[in-house]
């Protein structure tokens, strides 16, 4: 019984971690640009397809390839699509991100096909490990560790480095940051590059877990992670990580806790929770200072 609880908790934490990383990627871009980037999902998807393309190469090469592609696509979409729209209405930006997301999805469907493809990335991680008499899938533990490392690195970057400081300043008040000499292009490009790294990590871990690829796979993850950024408090990075984590973890825990007949409706309960949180705290769990000022 207790073993079951621990296993479910590890499951919940590992899925929550993936959503936390996804929500963080979305939250970072929203922070500096007020853009809700649904095309973030395509960064995950394209990382997955890169892994497939490099399947015969050594694992390290495939992983590095996936990260490089995600960063390159993130920077390219910023330069080609979002930079010309800088300062546009958030609605315009949102619709542009949807258009971009569909464009990449359909291009993928056209070139590699829309059929689901099986892929076995990092098969070593499928192994079970035993810690204190409890069996875990190694991949879940790795997912949690990777998330902790990335959160630590991001937090260090934002708090301790010059460009991290500039990025936080730009997220709180972009105009004032510019008045102090913060370069808009640099800060925004950096945010996109980091969102690419986060998306690549999620893409690699997610594909390792699911073992399949399809052009639409990223969107579902991003849609749920986006809900996480909203309940966490749009514009707040800690909020995004916490919100994403909670939504992901809640999904897994409900799966374990709900009576059998209700399990297929677990999303219903997750979103019910979301509604309740937003009713109690409309600004999210951890509101962003910049947004609070604006209202």
């Amino acid at each position, binding site marked *: 019984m207790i073993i079951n609880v621990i296993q479910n908790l590890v499951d919940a934490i590992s899925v929550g971690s993936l959503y936390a990383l996804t929500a963080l990627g979305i939250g970072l871009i929203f922070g500096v640009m007020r853009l809700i980037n649904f095309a973030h999902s395509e960064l995950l998807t394209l990382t997955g397809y890169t892994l497939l393309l490099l399947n015969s190469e050594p694992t390290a090469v495939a992983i590095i390839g996936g990260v490089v592609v995600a960063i390159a696509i993130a920077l390219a979409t910023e330069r080609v699509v979002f930079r010309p729209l800088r300062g546009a209405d958030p609605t315009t930006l949102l619709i542009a991100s949807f258009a971009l997301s569909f464009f990449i999805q359909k291009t993928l469907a056209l070139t590699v096909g829309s059929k689901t493809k099986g892929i076995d990335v990092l098969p070593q991680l499928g192994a079970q490990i035993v810690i204190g008499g409890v069996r875990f899938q190694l991949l879940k533990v790795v997912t949690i560790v990777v998330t902790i490392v990335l959160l630590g690195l991001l937090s260090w970057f934002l708090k301790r480095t010059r460009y991290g400081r500039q990025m936080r300043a730009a997220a709180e008040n972009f*105009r004032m940051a510019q008045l*102090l000499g913060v370069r808009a292009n640099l800060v925004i490009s950096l945010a996109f590059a980091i969102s690419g790294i986060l998306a690549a990590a999620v893409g690699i871990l997610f594909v390792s877990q699911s073992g399949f690829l399809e052009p639409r796979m990223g969107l579902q993850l991003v849609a749920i992670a986006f809900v996480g950024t909203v309940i966490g408090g749009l514009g707040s990075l800690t909020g995004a990580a916490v919100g994403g984590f909670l939504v992901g973890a809640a999904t897994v825990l409900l799966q374990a806790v709900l009576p059998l007949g209700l399990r297929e409706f677990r999303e219903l309960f997750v979103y019910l929770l979301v509604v309740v949180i937003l009713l109690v705290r409309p600004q999210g769990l951890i509101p962003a*200072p910049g947004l609070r000022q604006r209202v």
Partner: protein
Amino acid sequence: MQRRQSPTPQDDRPILAVSDLHVAYGTITALRGITVRINQGEIVAVVGPNGAGKSTLLSTIAGLVRPRQGQIQYRGHSLVGRSIEDILRGGISLVPEGRHIFSAMTVEENLLLGATIRNDAREIDADIDSLTGRFPILRKRWQQPAGRLSGGEQQQLAIARALLSRPSLLILDEPSLGLAPGIIDEVYRILLEQRSRGTTILVVEQNATRALEAADYTHILSAGAIRLSGTSKQLLENPQFDAAYFGVAPPEGSSDRDHKRHSKLG
């Protein structure tokens, strides 16, 4: 308008010369042919009622707004069309209305951001030491989120932050807004001291009294045009002062309100 000599003339030419500046937001005109000259080492004030176009003038100098017509010459070079960063690097630093400190970041981080354009880490540290010597409250609140500071403390932080870019010309938008009289005195004491260190200052105020006391030269701006200019003494003795300040009704769709919609910080 008769110009008097600068108290410490170092150059024949003014450090900043705004001439015939016209600014409009869409169909709404905010400035209609403004001409202002600032000599090295002066404090120049622009006072006027809400909606006069004061913030627009500063925003245009800082590169936030493009003028429709007219010139802004700084040390003999045109600022029109230059980027915000270029203008800052040239030595003009703006403390905007409402201070706009980064409330979630610490006092230390706010100050470091003021030195964004500089790369001389050791000199920056020395400047920060000297500034926190002048504003001890900032040292005391060093690691606190700036949002927890009082209004007066935030204004000190905003000024210190602006000074960290080592500006030759400091421009301030309504520095006394929302502050208690004692705190306003403190802010102006800081400005006068900064002038004595060689910084030229352009300040915009709705509260004319305090600005007139501090300024070497004052312009009264109303409805987008300068109505009267002179030294404090000349202006206070001028029977047209009140008429110039209050007499002209702001035009339809007051410009300042519109300005805020267009270039609101944050």
